[in-house]
């Protein structure tokens, strides 16, 4: 009975989404407040019914209702309750429902937090969100119903959740990632609304900025969680595989990063408008492209969902309609005004433009690398899979170039920057960076050009960021006063850049100075990895909740002193007949020691994988700091205060916002 209610709730939500995409938009076009007033209640209703549907599916998992096909395929009565909960988004249908729940959630958030915006704008933005929702509701109801029943032959038990997904990292990874993907729909909706109105102004950029930043912060967290999970769960100690699904999440991240910076220029200086609005469209389109790549089976990957041509066609149609409609609108409505000489050839505008060029180039590079096999096949030029070497060789130079520009860009000024002044300004950070990088090379004991470039970039970005903070916080009332006077959005930027520097440092050092050894070990024996000695004490067996495991005990010594005792496992899951490697890691800020058990070679001996991973934690710590920077930036007072004063200004002059406040009253 409940599953049918869940499905009914989805259908009601679809109907509300249809109304939402038509009624407020019609109201905005004809200037009827009575129609625009529907925008907020419809958004709320859509979210409530989607939430209800999600709750029903969760309930089906919790009570082991194996009559529901999706539950039977992704759960098992032996599964602990928290994995039953995360299994709700462990497969295609449920993760799609989570995606839609978040889309409805973002729509509701816009409805709630946009009370101070002109009502036409709000109506249009919410209508566009409604249109996107319609597409996804149709997709789930038509092709991927999570409430399909297996009647009358109800399975006695479920076929279990993929053991790879039975992990804390995977409980959190998809929700964070989807929050990011879906969150870019808000920036997209604002861009479309602005194009419809023909009002691509500073106010539009200011309203879009916090939404873009928060979506970007979630996406950053989601990608980092996925990388962290792959590192300790997949058993071979890698942290990024250039897998199509990973690339699918990196694409909107790169263009979203470009969008964040370009919005800043548009807000502060009123230039790059056409470019910014195009980035907003592209970023959300890339999020949709990611969904298409993962769910259609066009490209295959270790963790793509089961494929179904019908789903692929539907998603491609959805993607096609979104992209063609928005880009056509863009082509006809984007401003073509040429802004003449409002900024010099050396200015912050130019640095941010170069940053955008590099980020977009990197986006295209990753897109080409991901879609390349498909394109070649289409042109009948042969079939080829593309791998890590391509990405490593092409992506690294771009990252270094972007980092070097970033350092210089931080000191630059809007409108015009004096070249000589900038060069003098950069002299000291440059000198310190060269010295510090040389010191790092000495510590790790060997020199490699790419290692030097990467570490130098990281130090350079850090030096420039800290130097600038030092300059800006100079005050007659003392340093502390100066530091306190800086805005939260400035600190957000500082954290974002420092986090990036950490990620670059981590990626460079672990790639160049990490050590991997596959050794044959017998209990009682020992092996070396880097400066560490690993002693294999014994191997035993234990019974887990839904698996049987062989586990080893290893002691790790540095200079004769024990630093850790590690217990890696090899788990056998009987239900799905699968084997999982649970690596044991002694984590540290400056290095990880990583041990994974391989095959039994003989009665006594085991294949053991030992790894020394310097600075690998910096990858995820840096990403976390970047995300915190994003959240800090949107908590800045100026978004609230300026929006309020804006509303007051127009209230005294125009009718539009009087209507807006009326609509708001009607809702309250």
């Amino acid at each position: 009975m409940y599953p049918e209610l869940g499905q009914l709730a989805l259908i009601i939500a679809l109907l509300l989404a249809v109304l939402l995409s038509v009624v407020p938009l019609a109201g905005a076009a004809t200037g009827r407040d009575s129609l625009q007033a529907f925008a907020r209640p419809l958004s709320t209703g859509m979210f409530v019914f989607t939430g209800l549907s999600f709750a029903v599916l969760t309930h089906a998992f919790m009570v082991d209702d194996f009559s529901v096909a999706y539950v039977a395929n992704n759960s098992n009565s032996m599964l602990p309750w928290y994995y039953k909960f995360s299994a709700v988004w462990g497969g295609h249908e449920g993760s799609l429902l989570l995606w839609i729940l978040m889309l409805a959630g973002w729509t509701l958030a816009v409805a709630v937090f946009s009370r101070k915006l002109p009502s036409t704008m709000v109506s249009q933005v919410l209508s566009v969100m409604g249109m996107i929702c319609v597409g996804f509701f149709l997709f789930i109801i038509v092709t991927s119903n999570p409430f399909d029943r297996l009647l009358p032959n109800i399975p006695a038990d479920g076929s279990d959740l993929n053991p790879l997904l039975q992990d804390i990292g995977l409980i959190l990874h998809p929700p964070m990632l989807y929050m990011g993907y879906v969150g870019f729909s808000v920036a997209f909706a604002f861009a479309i609304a602005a194009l419809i109105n023909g009002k691509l102004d500073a106010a539009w950029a200011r309203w879009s900025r916090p939404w873009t930043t928060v979506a970007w912060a979630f996406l950053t967290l989601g990608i980092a969680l996925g990388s962290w999970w792959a590192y300790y769960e997949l058993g071979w100690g890698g942290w990024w595989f250039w897998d199509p699904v990973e690339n699918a999440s990196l694409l909107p991240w790169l263009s979203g990063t470009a969008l964040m910076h370009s919005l800043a220029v548009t807000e502060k200086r009123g230039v790059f408008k056409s470019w910014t609005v195009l980035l907003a469209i592209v970023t959300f389109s890339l999020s949709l492209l990611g969904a298409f790549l993962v769910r259609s089976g066009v490209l295959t990957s270790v963790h793509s969902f089961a494929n179904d041509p019908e789903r692929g066609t539907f998603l491609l149609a959805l993607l096609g309609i979104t992209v063609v409609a928005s880009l056509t609108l863009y082509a006809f409505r984007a401003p073509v005004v040429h802004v003449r000489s409002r900024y010099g050839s050396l200015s912050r505008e130019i640095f941010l433009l170069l940053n955008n060029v590099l980020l977009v180039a990197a986006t295209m590079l990753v897109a080409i690398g991901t879609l390349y096999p498909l394109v070649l096949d289409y042109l009948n030029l042969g079939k080829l899979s593309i791998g890590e070497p391509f990405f490593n060789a092409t992506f690294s130079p771009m990252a270094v170039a972007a980092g070097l520009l970033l350092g210089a860009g931080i000191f630059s000024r809007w409108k015009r920057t004096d070249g000589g002044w900038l060069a003098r300004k950069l002299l000291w950070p440059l000198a310190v960076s060269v010295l510090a990088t040389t010191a790092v090379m000495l510590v790790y004991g060997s020199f490699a050009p790419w290692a030097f470039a990467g570490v130098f970039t990281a130090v350079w970005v850090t030096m420039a960021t800290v130097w600038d903070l030092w300059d800006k916080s100079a005050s007659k009332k003392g340093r502390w006063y100066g530091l306190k006077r800086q805005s939260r959005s400035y600190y957000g930027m500082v954290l974002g850049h420092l986090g990036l520097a950490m990620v670059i440092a981590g990626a460079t050092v672990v790639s160049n100075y990490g050590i991997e050894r596959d050794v044959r070990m017998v209990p009682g024996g020992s092996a070396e990895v880097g400066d560490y000695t690993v002693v294999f004490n014994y191997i035993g067996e234990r019974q887990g909740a839904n698996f049987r495991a062989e586990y080893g005990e290893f002691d790790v010594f540095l200079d004769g002193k024990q630093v850790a005792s590690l217990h890696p496992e090899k788990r056998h899951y009987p239900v799905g007949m699968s084997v999982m490697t649970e690596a044991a890691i002694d984590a540290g800020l400056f290095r990880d020691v990583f041990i994974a058990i391989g095959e039994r070679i003989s009665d006594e001996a085991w294949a053991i994988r030992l790894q020394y991973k310097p600075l690998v934690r910096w990858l995820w710590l840096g990403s976390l700091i970047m995300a915190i920077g994003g959240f800090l930036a949107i908590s800045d007072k100026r978004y609230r205060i300026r929006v309020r004063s804006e509303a007051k200004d127009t209230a005294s002059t125009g009718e539009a916002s009087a209507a807006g406040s009326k609509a708001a009253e009607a809702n309250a």
Partner: protein
Amino acid sequence: MRRVMLFVPLVVALVVGILLASGIGKDPSELESALIGKPVPEFNLENLREPGEMLDQSLFRGEVSLLNVWAEWCPACWDEHEDLMWLANEKGVRIIGLNYKDQKENAFRFLGRLGDPYQTIIFDPRGTLGFDLGVYGAPETFVIDARGVVLYRHVGVVNERVWEEILLPVMNQAKGNS
């Protein structure tokens, strides 16, 4: 900037869209069914153990074989290797290895440690034959009859149960065919 420039993104998007649409029909994992009953795709790749010696699809003629796709970097391949050794030594199955997107030294280290159940190993460092076979991750195992026709594809590890319940019946059928 002229307005015509603003149409560039639209045109680019349409081109990419056409490419993606063509990709749906050619779903690589659909090869699962498409390849069954068809000969092994043509290839010309090096023999891993005999550098310089080239192998092609004629390798599969004359005897029923298993084609096992493996790589050193694939943890599940380590897991199934013991069972492949058992199949080759105890059951006398002819297993052809496809060393997939691997490096030679890694492959030899793997075989040196775990043993070598393969009659011949095809070295496919760029994954070209793997792509034609629709491989989307190692390990995968194909049953190929004496005429060189693909009869079955198994994704994931081979173990005793998979052998007895799935592969053996297909192998017997293959022997009946020829």
